[in-house]
């Protein structure tokens, strides 16, 4: 089937789905389930698991066809961790039972996922994690998990989590880790909001105390969790290559608008800085556009790893300038009440929020310092730094 499938065929399948389940008269969840069962969820996945074994490039054909007919989507921003990280990992390393159990409700959005990776003592050095998973000696084969995770977005609404924990402290740190699927409703899982500098609690701390996980919810072999986690992390990298961004499409547009509309705020110093940033934002946009064109042409370059660095710095500098430009208004803040947003919304909030939230852009998803190391070593081929944690047992490392 996969050898012959083409755009015409997926378009026909999309039309058949629409005919059998007209969006106007079908419930949202029912439609999404039918779409999954028709193999039109992610066409490059296997038949029976929401896909058709078709080329990934055919997905936009399906999406366009269904969107034009007013079909509901699965709110990919809300279920981003499940779609972007859990799903490819389960597909790559899960058992048949796991794939059958988890992929459908994940894609439909009925079950939200979160990621229990980072810890207070293991951020950029993720493999240093200390959360322990010990096999219960009662003969059940269950694992008992104790530890603390942090920076977990969606944990307060999640049904499931992907979890990495240490199963062997006597071997070097990368080798003693295993990968699990954790039920967030199980006893011993406690989620606490983690309030950030914006005043909001977008993330959580998760405390795991004697949480029992059956061995059937392990992903990949015992002690091989680091390798599994690489799949998850590779899929975390910001994916560019979707839509074209228009000129002034990012945060620079907001500042430029204020500049044009409020001449009284202008000073020569701000003008000089605004223009420098305007040019840099335009060049970053063009760099993203060039990367997009490379991907479309089938020649992906390493530029993607640099884009996050550029956008983090630009967001921070532009939002800092914006607060200054606003003057008196920049002294104000919308609301310090503890809120629990499900999405990060840069444009819907005020300048102070943008300034504070953008500080996270150079930390989340890999700090800029670690990304610079990655560029230096993997793109430029510079030598790796000497390290002393590769061969030592985890339990002997300084913490």
């Amino acid at each position: 089937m996969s050898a012959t499938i083409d755009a015409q065929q997926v378009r026909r399948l999309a039309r058949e789905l629409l005919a059998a389940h007209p969006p106007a008269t079908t419930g949202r969840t029912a439609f999404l389930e039918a779409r999954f069962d028709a193999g039109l969820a992610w066409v490059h996945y296997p038949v029976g698991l929401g896909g058709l074994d078709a080329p990934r490039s055919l997905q936009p054909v399906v999406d366009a066809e269904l969107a034009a007919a007013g079909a509901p989507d699965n709110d990919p921003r809300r279920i981003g961790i499940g779609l972007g990280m859990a799903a490819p990992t389960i597909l790559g390393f899960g058992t048949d039972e796991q794939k059958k159990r988890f992929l459908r409700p994940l894609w439909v959005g009925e079950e939200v996922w979160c990621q229990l990776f980072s810890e207070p003592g293991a951020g950029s050095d993720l493999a240093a994690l200390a959360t322990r998973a010990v096999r219960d000696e009662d003969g059940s084969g269950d694992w008992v998990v104790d530890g603390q995770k942090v920076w977990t977005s969606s944990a307060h609404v999640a049904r499931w989590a992907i979890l990495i924990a240490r199963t062997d402290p006597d071997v070097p740190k990368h080798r003693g880790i295993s990968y699990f699927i954790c039920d967030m409703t199980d006893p011993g899982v406690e989620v606490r909001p983690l309030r950030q500098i914006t005043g909001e609690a977008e993330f959580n701390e998760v405390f795991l105390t004697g949480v029992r996980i059956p061995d059937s919810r392990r992903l990949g072999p015992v002690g091989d969790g680091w390798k599994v986690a690489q799949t998850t992390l590779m899929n975390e990298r910001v994916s560019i290559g979707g839509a074209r961004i228009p000129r002034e499409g990012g945060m620079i547009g907001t500042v430029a608008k204020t500049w044009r509309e409020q001449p009284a705020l202008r000073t020569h110093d701000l003008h000089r800085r605004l223009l420098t940033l305007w040019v840099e934002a335009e060049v970053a946009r063009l760099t993203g556009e060039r990367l997009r064109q490379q991907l479309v042409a089938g020649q992906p370059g390493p530029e993607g790893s640099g884009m996050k660095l550029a956008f983090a710095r630009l967001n921070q500098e532009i939002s800092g300038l914006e607060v200054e430009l606003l003057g008196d208004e920049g002294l104000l803040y919308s609301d310090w009440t503890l809120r629990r947003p499900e999405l990060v919304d840069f444009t819907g909030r005020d300048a102070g929020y943008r300034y504070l939230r953008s500080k996270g852009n150079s930390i989340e998803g890999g700090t800029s310092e670690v990304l610079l190391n990655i560029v230096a070593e993997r793109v430029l081929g510079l030598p790796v730094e000497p390290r002393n944690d590769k061969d030592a047992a985890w339990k002997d490392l300084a913490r």
Partner: protein
Amino acid sequence: MTAQTEAHAPDLLYSEAEEDLRSAVRSLLADRADAPKVLASIESDTPYDQRLWDSLASGIGAAGLLVPEKLGGQGASHREAAVVIEELGRSVAPAPYLTSSVVATEVLLALVTDDGPAGELLAGLAAGRKVAVLALPFATAPADSARALTGTLDRTVTGVADAVAADVLLVPTGEGLYAVETGGDGVGVQPLVALDLTRPLAAVTLSGATGTRLAEAGPAAAAVTRGLLAGAGLLASEQLGVAEWCLTETVRYTRERHQFNRPVGSFQSLKHRMAQLWLEVVSARAAARNAADALAAGSPDAPLAVAVAQAYCSTVAVHAAEECVQLHGGIGMTWEHPAHLYLKRAKADSIAYGSAGRHRDAVAELVELEAP
């Protein structure tokens, strides 16, 4: 045009034909203009290697890329010319390409008529038989071209790039644009000691010189603007080439050079600086390609694309060259190592055809971000 609309969807990649052209130019330059040869030639009395120029201009046909076939050229575009210039930047070879094959050529293209004198001169430039330069200071920005049309054929113009290699000067005056033969009476070209040894500057002195009038003041201003806009736009590709060489050589050197019993390139402070530079080079490529593509398409977006590319790429080339000298340590300060040639070229380029600040002013005007 407003800031929000984009007149032209750019093609920012290199085509297969462009890559073929790049290979041809690169192997020619590797053969005839490697670092020791460039160093030797700038210390000689003849900074230009005539054989190199003949091979590049007529052998490869690079001189006529911008000229339509019916006027004796290759009928290619700014995209291809940009690739040639990128390679010339990478080798800092002295060659009057940007000044003659781009700027002077564009000025003449704006003025060419069926039987006028511009056509004949253009054919000579396209074939590589003649070299012409615009007799304006090298620092003149496209936005200042109207102001440049002053004076008469009796005056001195300083800081004219590549004038020592020119057969013909295109001289803007208050009455229009003239073509003046450098060998004619009343024409003097005095070489100046330039910061950038690989692109000679001269003072052009005209006293009672005669020339052929190519255009009256009005069309001359438009033609000069077109020439300078193409020059500034494609200069970004030269700056990209300079920056790429600097980054590549710095990475190579710091991988090999050992201090403190480690390759110096393994130190994080150096790795981060080189990674940052890589990001700038990647971005400079997108900006430079965008400018070349907008010029090639004759897009109304071209003035903005050029101003953005110049405001960005100037700084990147200088930064890359300065990092190259610093990260090479002591050897980067020596005359024997070519790093200084790139630093001098990069710094001179940051002034050529308008500084980054001048181009930011142009951006401000084009996208309506007015100064207080």
